[in-house]
């Protein structure tokens, strides 16, 4: 990308962000037609507003408030369900659900099958049945490994380390994505009461631990033990990003300069004590599944998490102890940013790429090695 174009892209991004935020002093653009295009786009779009009656109904359902107290004009009471009505997600009855269009048949009456057709169908059935039996016999002895992939699934090990938690109690754990713009600013993370780790994703990331400076190329990682000071920066001209895991009681209280670093959740490990007391083995992986590929995981520690980075995941859990809201054997489809539960011990987990693009997942497993006193 040429330097001039890169400058134009950056300038336009700054302009749109400032203008959209309502800043009165948004920067002028070298090419005003870009701003004019954006402005025209906003002006052209006139989407309808939400129906106030629906909004108040939904609020009442979500929060348990009374619709009557909202007092919006035009509020419509919920109709009574009838045999010919269909209930939609929003609690409203609906006489016209999604249209299902059956193709018009040119032969509405199917003639009876001839003997030759029946024989062909029987032969076809036998062939298919034989194929299924052959496939089952080939796959029946499932290997004891925890991964079983169909297709070219890539597994990158991002962190494989032994980490030391609090000696007495389990502590919360979270994984987030840091994005650091280019520039001279650095971010200092003061000593924490738990371990943390960093995996460089893109750009030229630098990390100094108690003053010892490291340059992290994409894919490189660092584990920082408790009580160390971490300083991160971006030595390059492009934006840098990293995955950062942290186990600490105090991470939620961390303060940081939002101009120097941006944080977003990368893996939802739920707000419960995830890192057990004592020493644990931590395995942090990035999995890439091609469309249609299936991966089986056998959670062994009760501290296994999966998150979607990109693509669509069909997740099936089979077992006795299901997370809240999950049913054994039922597949749910989830995408990036959606919340997934921790995977209980003994659950059979099937991950399937249901999209048309590669499915990228993060997977975290914490296995206690030596429990503390808790």
């Amino acid at each position, binding site marked *: 990308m040429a330097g001039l174009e890169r400058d134009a892209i950056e300038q336009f991004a700054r302009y749109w962000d400032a203008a959209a935020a309502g800043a009165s002093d948004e920067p002028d653009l070298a090419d005003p*037609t870009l701003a004019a295009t954006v402005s025209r786009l906003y002006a052209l779009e006139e*989407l309808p507003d939400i129906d106030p009656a629906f909004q108040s109904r939904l609020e009442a359902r979500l*929060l348990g408030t009374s619709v009557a107290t909202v007092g919006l004009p035009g509020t419509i009471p919920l109709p009574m369900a009838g045999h010919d009505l269909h209930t939609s997600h929003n609690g409203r009855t609906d006489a016209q659900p999604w249209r299902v269009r059956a193709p018009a048949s040119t032969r509405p009456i199917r003639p009876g099958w001839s003997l030759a057709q029946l024989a062909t169908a029987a032969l076809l059935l036998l062939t298919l049945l034989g194929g299924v039996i052959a496939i089952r016999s080939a796959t029946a002895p499932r290997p004891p490994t925890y991964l079983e992939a169909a297709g070219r699934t890539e597994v990158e090990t991002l962190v494989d380390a032994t980490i030391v938690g609090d000696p007495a109690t389990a502590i919360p754990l979270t994984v987030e994505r840091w994005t650091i713009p280019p520039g001279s600013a650095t971010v200092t993370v003061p000593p924490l009461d738990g371990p943390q780790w960093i995996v460089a994703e893109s750009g030229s990331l630098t990390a100094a631990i108690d003053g010892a400076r490291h340059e992290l190329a994409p894919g490189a990682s660092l584990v920082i033990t408790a009580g160390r000071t971490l300083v991160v920066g971006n030595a390059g001209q492009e*934006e840098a990003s990293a995955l950062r895991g942290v186990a600490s009681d105090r991470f939620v209280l961390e303060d940081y300069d939002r101009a120097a670093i941006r944080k977003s959740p990368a893996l939802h490990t739920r707000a419960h004590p995830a890192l057990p007391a004592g020493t644990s083995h931590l395995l942090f992986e990035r999995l890439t599944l091609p469309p249609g590929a299936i991966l089986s995981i056998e959670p062994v520690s009760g501290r296994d998490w999966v998150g979607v980075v990109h693509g669509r995941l069909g997740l099936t859990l089979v077992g006795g102890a299901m997370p809240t809201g999950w049913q054994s054997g039922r597949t749910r489809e989830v*995408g990036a940013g959606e919340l997934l539960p921790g995977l209980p011990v003994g659950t059979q987990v099937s991950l399937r790429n249901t999209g048309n693009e590669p499915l990228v997942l993060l997977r975290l497993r914490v296995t206690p090695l030596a429990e503390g006193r808790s």
Partner: protein
Amino acid sequence: MGVQGGSAKIQAPGAATGDDEAALVAAAQRDRRAFGPLYARYANPIFKYCFAQLRDRQAAEDATSLVFTKALDGLSRFHGGSFRAWLFAIARNVVTDQFRARRFDAPLEAAAAVAAPGATLDDLAADADRDRGVWTLLAELTPDQRQVIELRLRGLAGSEVADVVGRSHAWVKVTQFRAIQRLRATMGVTVEPKEVDDGGA
């Protein structure tokens, strides 16, 4: 289309999220009944996003309902960052699911109407339905570009769009730039030079 002078002002909907958002989220995490202000703030933007994607009021209402149900269920696991981006990420996934459910049900005419390319601003001016004009314009873009522009039209900052679509901020910057360049060409946007006051000749 000609625009006189320098840059045009953008009238962006629902831009500012306010400094109180983190406090509102924290309060709702403690007590779901405190989710009301966040719901009031985002019900309309989320509905509009869903409507822009699904183009059907009832489907958009169903999707909006699902978005907030999922958001409430998952609120305890929200660990910071942009709440708005998190909420729109849920909306994006819900809409994608709706599309999958509808894929085999939608009449063929609907798909043809969406994909019709080549509209110019003159065509748009003659079109009484201005929303459809925007949809036709956005149909000129790649799916990635369309997704970015639709989120930006809902008031999200570039960094928030990056969070929603799971890509880098740099990727969003490049994608939105290319999209606006393309739309500029389609819409035929030009800028007329400012009239210069020569001192009253």
